[in-house]
């Protein structure tokens, strides 16, 4: 199991479009991936789950991956989030 904390810096938070990009990336990896904000953790492969965290710009989230290819999944997701999820 690996995890990393990252700050969301895209323009308008984790709403439909950036959440979709994140979920699609998570879905490419065979391992389980979760996103955590505060004490709430959701499946990173569920759009409704990720949107329900309502992560705003500047907020900190933790990406956690467990299983086959967990390092690659974590790296890809952290890079995607740091890049601004298509709307930096």
């Amino acid at each position, binding site marked *: 199991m690996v995890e990393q904390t990252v700050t969301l810096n895209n323009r*308008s*938070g984790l*709403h*439909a*479009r950036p959440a979709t990009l994140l979920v699609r990336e998570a879905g490419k990896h065979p391992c389980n991936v979760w996103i955590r904000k505060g004490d709430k953790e959701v499946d990173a492969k569920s*759009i*409704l789950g990720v*949107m*329900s965290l*309502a992560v705003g710009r500047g907020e900190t989230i933790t990406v956690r991956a467990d299983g086959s290819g967990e390092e690659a999944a974590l790296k890809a997701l952290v890079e995607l989030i740091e890049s601004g999820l298509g709307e930096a």
Partner: protein
Amino acid sequence: MFWNRRKTRVVEQESAPVWVEVLAPFSGRALTLADVPDPVFAQKMVGDGAAVDPASDTLVAPVSGTLTNLFPTGHAAGITTDEGLEILIHIGMDTVELKGEGFTPVARQGDRVTAGQPIIRMDLERLRSVAKSLVTPVVLTNPARVAALEPVASGDVVAGRDVLFRVQVRREADER
């Protein structure tokens, strides 16, 4: 012999396909996702479904279930049905940038909702002047649970009454 016949009948009932009808969340004109002016929805990246160009000011639940997601800005809602389908309703395009202006949620995240129940009221006149588009996609975000999806509506629809599309639920044979 009668026992056998009876058993067979029960098995047939159990394996009958389960369809969930997804109602129009607004009154207005039914559109296909290809008509939605945002590639993320038009290319079905978020999921498959349909859309409505709203003429009414109240978003109603298109299905019964749990309101698992009510975005704080009031421009989107997600419902998980008892069959496990996840349905996202997204009012307009780039409306997240309005930061809640013009949207008033009338339900709460976590609520149990019934198809047709009001979830979000909006200031239609104001939003028409400030939003890029109010076209509202209604999409299934967990395709793994979907065996088939059929569009139903075209033309004018009435909120909470007309079926926009219907979904056949995929059975999870290894569950239960």
